[in-house]
């Protein structure tokens, strides 16, 4: 990872001093462990702020929306696919971007590590090829890196950026997985009542804080349907019906666009697995339209276009 840091800084310094871009958007170290945060750097002397580690799960495409300047942006596999989606949806122009591609090794799951620490406060977290070593006052704990990857990273098959101007390292080997949708299929196998109860249970802690929506690069509407009051599309309470309606619609607005970057799930303060909904849609869009979001520039998402051969089995 550390070689990535040097490379990212070198590229950023070059781009800024040669005036190829106005800003570089990347990550910097957070103030507490496992919380790398987005950073916008505009002067070559500041590039040493930039950093890269296993905690860069925030999706930087979210910071590109409707910008008008020239931007160097650090992008892992999923970010690059969201950049493609952004370009297709006219949220940014390709010419404005210099994409610093980062072949990704997967991000570690901060919330599961914290849960395993059971209240112990980590002060340093070091990740090597196989292990995550967490230290704090009077303790040291080791976790297997592969096991403690973010759930979406464990099932990611596009770790290398799909668009880039420059890569910071050789491409990584993509994961070969038997079934990326095992969790979705498990739910599909339940009866309707079981499904209903299952989602009642997992959605119950939702606070309607909308962090999941705000973290998602797909959610760029100037006024989100949840915030509209004229007309008011859904209730603003934490009544289970309102919560469910919110989740149903949020997910559906991402249908055929979601890259499973996991930024939504990562942002949730109460660890709701919101990706179970978007993943179901990803699976369906793959089955029905043979489409994976953000892989090819110039192709609009399937629900955005009409084709005579669109699947219509549900219409009587």
């Amino acid at each position, binding site marked *: 990872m550390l070689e990535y840091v040097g490379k990212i800084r070198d590229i950023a310094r070059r781009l800024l001093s040669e005036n190829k871009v106005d800003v570089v958007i990347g990550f910097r170290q957070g103030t507490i462990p496992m919380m790398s945060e987005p950073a916008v750097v505009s002067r070559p002397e500041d590039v040493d702020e930039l950093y890269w580690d296993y905690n860069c799960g925030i999706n930087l495409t979210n910071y590109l929306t409707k910008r008008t300047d020239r931007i160097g942006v650090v992008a892992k596999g999923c970010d690059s696919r969201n950049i493609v989606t952004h370009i297709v949806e006219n949220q940014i122009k390709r010419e404005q971007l210099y994409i610093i591609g980062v072949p990704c090794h997967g991000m570690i799951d901060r919330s599961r590590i914290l849960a395993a620490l059971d209240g112990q406060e980590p002060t340093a977290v070091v990740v090597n090829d196989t292990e995550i070593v967490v230290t704090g006052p009077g303790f040291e704990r080791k976790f297997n890196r592969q096991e403690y990857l973010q759930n979406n990273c464990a099932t990611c098959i596009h770790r290398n950026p799909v668009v880039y101007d420059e890569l910071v390292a050789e491409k990584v080997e993509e994961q070969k997985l038997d079934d990326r949708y095992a969790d979705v299929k498990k739910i599909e196998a339940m009866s309707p009542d079981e499904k209903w109860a*299952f989602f009642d249970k997992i959605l119950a802690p939702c606070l309607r804080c909308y962090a999941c929506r705000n973290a998602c690069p797909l959610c760029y509407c100037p006024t989100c349907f949840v915030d509209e009051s004229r007309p008011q599309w859904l209730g603003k309470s934490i009544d289970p019906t309102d919560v469910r309606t919110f989740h149903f619609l949020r997910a*559906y607005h991402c249908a055929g666009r979601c890259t499973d970057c996991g930024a939504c799930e990562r942002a949730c303060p109460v660890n709701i697995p919101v990706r179970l909904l978007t993943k179901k*849609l990803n699976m369906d869009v793959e089955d029905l339209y043979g489409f994976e979001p953000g892989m090819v520039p110039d192709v609009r998402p399937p629900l955005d276009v009409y084709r005579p051969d669109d699947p219509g089995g549900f219409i*009587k």
Partner: protein
Amino acid sequence: MMKGLLEYMGTEPGRLHFSWISSAESTKFVEVANTVAEEVKALGPAKHFIKEKAEVA
């Protein structure tokens, strides 16, 4: 896909129906309306997406 997601979240298959009927297709309209009514009746009254009482802050 919308029907798919609703059913994935626990709405009964048979609760929601889609059809495309031209204003000239009166027979089809009757047929579809009957099937919808039968299937929904068979499922019984809706249990979901109902608010028992208005939520007052």
